[in-house]
């Protein structure tokens, strides 16, 4: 019936929900998704130009289910909350089918089965409108700028903190720690041949090498053992000498 797209209350966002109806009464999901089942329901009620206090529940339920099927056919995953609402609608619809007189007999005050749903919709709509108000405010605020950084002696990076920052930071440290451990494991893949090669390169380019310092560079026990064996090996096979210039002094490996 209507060719033009309906304007929604929530029209402030580029990904605004959009259902286009064409002449053949087919609905088509145009863009984005609804913020939740209540959002979709409100949209459908407006679309039908229905009174929120007297929702044509059968029609709205059909429309709602049609939308869900559409989402599924478009491979949009339908969140559980949308399905819960579908079940609620079907339940309300079936309760509406019961003859009212019999209900009234049981209950002195006949409660409209739609009542709870309407209350939720009205409550939800308040916050939906409040969200729009926040949006408008933030738009204004985005046009306002604060002064640039003032140069000062204590220009270190400071952050104002909350408990969640603490947790976040802690998780980061743990992740970093994990990474380091993994790196270490990777380094341990080093073989004796590689260690020997490293040692030779170092020794022959500098003519002499402080053995203790070389050992301190090792990142794991395994590397340390390899380094030790490599030093013994190089003394055995190459013309190098181990020197200790004073008692308890550093041990030097010197090429002859």
């Amino acid at each position: 019936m209507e060719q033009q797209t309906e304007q929604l209350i929530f029209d402030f966002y580029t990904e605004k929900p959009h259902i286009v109806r064409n002449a053949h009464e087919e609905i088509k999901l145009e863009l984005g998704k609804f913020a939740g089942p209540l959002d979709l329901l409100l949209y459908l009620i407006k679309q039908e130009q229905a009174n929120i206090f007297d929702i044509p529940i059968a029609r709205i339920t059909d429309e709602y289910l049609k939308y869900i099927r559409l989402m599924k056919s478009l491979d949009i995953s339908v969140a559980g909350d949308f399905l819960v609402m579908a079940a609620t609608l079907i339940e309300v619809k079936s309760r509406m089918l019961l003859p009212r007189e019999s209900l009234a007999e049981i209950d002195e005050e006949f409660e409209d089965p739609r009542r709870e749903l309407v209350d939720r919709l009205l409550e939800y709509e308040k916050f939906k409108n409040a969200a729009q108000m926040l949006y408008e405010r933030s738009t204004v605020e985005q046009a306002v700028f604060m002064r640039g950084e003032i140069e000062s002696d204590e220009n270190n990076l400071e952050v104002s903190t909350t408990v969640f920052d603490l947790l976040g930071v802690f998780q980061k440290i743990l992740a970093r720690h994990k990474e380091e451990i993994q790196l270490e494991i990777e380094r341990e893949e080093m073989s004796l041949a590689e260690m020997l090669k490293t040692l030779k390169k170092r020794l022959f380019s500098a003519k002499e090498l402080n053995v203790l310092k070389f050992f301190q560079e090792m990142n794991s026990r395994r590397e340390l053992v390899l380094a030790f064996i490599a030093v013994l090996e190089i003394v055995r096979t190459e013309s190098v000498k181990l020197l200790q210039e004073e008692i308890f002094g550093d041990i030097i490996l010197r090429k002859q």
Partner: protein
Amino acid sequence: MNQETEKQPRSISELIAIIEALIFVADEPLTEKILADVLEEDKETIQIAVEELINEYKQREGGLQIREIAGGWQISTRTEFHEDIRKFLRTRPSAKLSIAALETLAVIAYKQPVTVPEILEIRGVQSASAIKTLLDKRLIVARGRKEAVGRPMQYGTSKDFLIQFGLKDLSELPNVEDFEDLTVGI
């Protein structure tokens, strides 16, 4: 208590000037209390001086304004010049919040302190990722646990929320009931 400084009493115009300088250097909106403490003046004097300063800024019609935000005063640029400023800073309007995040923020702002299940009840949809976004953007903060089954975490809005939405304090939020009758009875 303050014997070592033998200060001359300040003139009101001098006081206004000092307040302007302090508001300028402060990183956050500057409260009456801090001004009163630092300047050793009573709050009424501070209030009068700040009002005078705000008026002066209004009359000047310069590039800057003084606004009351998050319970304090802050100097910022006037909104009119945002295009040129943005061009200079090469910034675009910062990423907007999704509808889900805005709705969740609205619920938290009006119902605080509020738990995740309570938000779910009002919005009718899981709000976990929206809450995470809001926490990351420091718009909301945890406010301790509720004394209920499972002791769920409660959330409330932060000072950054007030600053980002240009609010003096939470009481400046329009009444949520006022939003009710916008679409009722179409």
